[in-house]
Structures are given as structure tokens and as C-alpha cells.
């Protein structure tokens, strides 16, 4: 079909990337795209999580469904998820979800044999596939004592208690159940633009300037100790709370500062559960959104049906 393109060309600038954290600027696009990406990252990028648990022996203090629920919430490494099949449309196993294309099997066997309480953790889960294992947080070098870190506790056993189970992990999306969400948090904010009216600002005493700077609940402004000039210390600390604007008004100096939200610039913060890398999460979100758009294209028979009926329509359109 002919027609002018109204495409935009967004820009990206990455500020920080770590495996499970990323902060970047997204420019030259609109809030709908930013929000669609955020929504897709949270609820529609697939991961793998335990979905079916068969308990053989459970003499622990927690009941079977409680343990099954806890198992489901353990993040599993999910780089493979994008290429895996959903078990509902897997034809290799008639959708019972027990084949290598759509599922991964886990085994857990634990028994406490002495008076020391035994912690059953995610590290006691044995996977049938070495690419899909419980996420290991021990190498994240930030603060955790590596020797202490034994994974996520599932249940604690005392002498004589035992837990034996088989679990099937499947691919899924956060829309189905939050356990499949790869994102811990995904947020974006408009980039603020702050102008200080220097002329009005110079009319203030140092005392008043201090009062003004302190009126902001976050440290947005600061005073240069040498020149006593008020400057923008950190524009992004501004939470759009309007406190400084109210203060300026109260001091009888409306227009002392002007603050705008740049409506085509966004600052994104992405944190993942560790199942996939933050950078991969964003790339997967783009792919998923593209698939969704492809799925909502009009099928050719609706177009044909319209064209037949469209003799009149074409006439009305002036075609």
C-alpha cells in the first residue's frame, strides 16, 4: 500500500549495564512506545519456571502446594526461553509438556539425618538440562559472602524429615503468572528540563536561596559555596513534586525556576530476576513486540472481502 511514512528514528544511550541491571536513555520517540516496551518487558518476555511438581515424599512442615508454589518462584536461567516452545503448542508431545522442546525436568531429594537443621535450597535442584538451572547469585560480588550463599531456601528439615520430588519447568510469560516475569522492576521517567531565572535568583539573599534549595525533598539544586549561585545539582532527582515551584510562589517569586518534562526523552531503569541479562531482556522485548504487531496485521481474506464490497467504498474514497 502506498502512503507517506510517519516513522520515527529513536536514539538510545546506555548509562550503565550490568548482568541484572541497566539504565539507559531513550530519545526521539513517544510515551506509547516507551510504555509498550515496559509492559512487554514485565509481562510478555518468556522465561522458564517450574510449573508442575510431583511430590513423592514430603514429611516437612510445609504442605505440598506450599512447596510447589515456592519452587515455581525460583528464577531459572532462561537464555533458551525465546527458542523454546510453549507446551500448549508443542506438537512433539501433544501438549502434555514433557519433551525436550518445551520442558526441563528437575529432581530434588533431601533428608535430614542429624540434629542439625537442614536447609533445602535451590542448589539441591538437579536439572536435566545444564542450560536451565536455578540462578546463581553467589558471583554477584556485591556484598554477599560467597561461602554463606547457598541459594534460595525452599524448606528447612529437622531430623527424620524428608523431601523427594520431581518438577517440570516450562516456558511461560508474566501475563500468565508472575513467576514467569523476567523483570524485577522496569520503570521509565520523562527527562526533566530545569531553567533557573538567574535574574530573579540574584535578587534573593543567601538565606532565601538556602531555603529555596532545601524546599525540594530530593537534592535537585545546590549552592556554589564560592559564588553563592544556585545551580542544578541533579535534574533527574526531581520527582515532579512541584515543591520548589510552590516555594517560589510562596516567596513571591513565581517563575524563579521553570521545569518541563521533555515528552520525547525517557530514562529507563531495568532490573531482572537474573533469569536473563538486562540487555537481553530489552532486545527480547523488541522482538516480542514485533511479533505481536505482525500478529495483528489484517489477513488477506479480510482485505479481499473489503475490496469486493469496496466498489462503493472506492467510489466514496474518490479512488
Amino acid at each position, binding site marked *: 500500500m502506498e502512503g507517506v511514512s*510517519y516513522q520515527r528514528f529513536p536514539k538510545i544511550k546506555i548509562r550503565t549495564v550490568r548482568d541484572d541491571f541497566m539504565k539507559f536513555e531513550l530519545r526521539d520517540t513517544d510515551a506509547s512506545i516507551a510504555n509498550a516496551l515496559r509492559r512487554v518487558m514485565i509481562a510478555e518476555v518468556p522465561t522458564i519456571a517450574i510449573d508442575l511438581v510431583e511430590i513423592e515424599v514430603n514429611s516437612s512442615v510445609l504442605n505440598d502446594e506450599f512447596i510447589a508454589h515456592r519452587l515455581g518462584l525460583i528464577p531459572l536461567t532462561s537464555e533458551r526461553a525465546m527458542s523454546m516452545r510453549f507446551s500448549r503448542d508443542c506438537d512433539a508431545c501433544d501438549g502434555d509438556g514433557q519433551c525436550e522442546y518445551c520442558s526441563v525436568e528437575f529432581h530434588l531429594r533431601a533428608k535430614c539425618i542429624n540434629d542439625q537443621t537442614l536447609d533445602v535450597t535451590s542448589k539441591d535442584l538437579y536439572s536435566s538440562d545444564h542450560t536451565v538451572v536455578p540462578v546463581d547469585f553467589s558471583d554477584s560480588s556485591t556484598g554477599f559472602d560467597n561461602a554463606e550463599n547457598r541459594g534460595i531456601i525452599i524448606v528447612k528439615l529437622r531430623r527424620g524429615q524428608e523431601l523427594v520430588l520431581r518438577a517440570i519447568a516450562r516456558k511461560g510469560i508474566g501475563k500468565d503468572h508472575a513467576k514467569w516475569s523476567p523483570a524485577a522492576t522496569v520503570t521509565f521517567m520523562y527527562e526533566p528540563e530545569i531553567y533557573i531565572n538567574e535574574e530573579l535568583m540574584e535578587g534573593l539573599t543567601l538565606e532565601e536561596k538556602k531555603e529555596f534549595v532545601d524546599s525540594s525533598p530530593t537534592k535537585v539544586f545546590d549552592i556554589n559555596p564560592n559564588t553563592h549561585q544556585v545551580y542544578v545539582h541533579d535534574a533527574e532527582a526531581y520527582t515532579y513534586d512541584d515543591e520548589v515551584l510552590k516555594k517560589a510562589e510562596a516567596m513571591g517569586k513565581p517563575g524563579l525556576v521553570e521545569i518541563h518534562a521533555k515528552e520525547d526523552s525517557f530514562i529507563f531503569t531495568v532490573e531482572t530476576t537474573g533469569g536473563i541479562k538486562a540487555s537481553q531482556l530489552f532486545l527480547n522485548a523488541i522482538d516480542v513486540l514485533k511479533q505481536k504487531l505482525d500478529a495483528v496485521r489484517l489477513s488477506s481474506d479480510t482485505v479481499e472481502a473489503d475490496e469486493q464490497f469496496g466498489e462503493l467504498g472506492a467510489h466514496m474514497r474518490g479512488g
Partner: protein
Amino acid sequence: MNAPDRYERFVVPEGVSKVSYERDTKIINAASFTIEREDHTIGNILRIRQLHRDENVLFAGYKLPHPLQYKILLRIHTTSQSSPMQAYNQAINDLDKELDHLKNEFEVELARHTGKQSRDY
């Protein structure tokens, strides 16, 4: 207890088409699209795309009729220079290209960033 199954949210039932198109009987160049199993993610990008960019679109809006009816209704009214179908297809094509561009941009930036990081060490 009588809540619909969770998969109802994203599995299109058999015999139902993902997108259906219905021309308005009274107004020329107006039509509504019913998109099954989609929500604000798709609805909002299509609406903003059409409202904000295409000057041949006179009206574009979408609604989610009910939180338990997993579909959106998108209504488009265009000038005689265009048609709702054309505007709809144009919007999807533009968004598709925009996402391609975004992906490219991100990959380049990521390579640049990780390259810089490893040089710093």
C-alpha cells in the same frame, strides 16, 4: 471460582480471527477493528501512531471494553485521501520499521558500551 482461565488472556480461541474489520455503515471512511487477545500495549501504540502522525486520520481511538473480555476495539476515521485499512497497515509498518531501527541502535550502543567497559579494566 468462576474466573476465566489464565491462558484465556493470550490464546485466541479456535474459529475466531485475531483481527476483524468492520466498516461503518453510516460514515464514509470510518471503520472499527476488533483485535482479539490484545491490550493497551498494542492499542496505545497504534492509536498514538495514528493520531499523532497521520494527518489523514480524523479520529483514532481504542477501548478495552471490559477487563475480562480480552480484546480491544480500535476505531479509525480518515479523510477521503486515505482509508481506515490503509492507515492501520501504515501504522503497523511504521512501528515495525521503528522497532527494527531501535533494535539496531541498541545493539550498536551496547557493543560500544561493553567495548568501552572492557578497555577500562
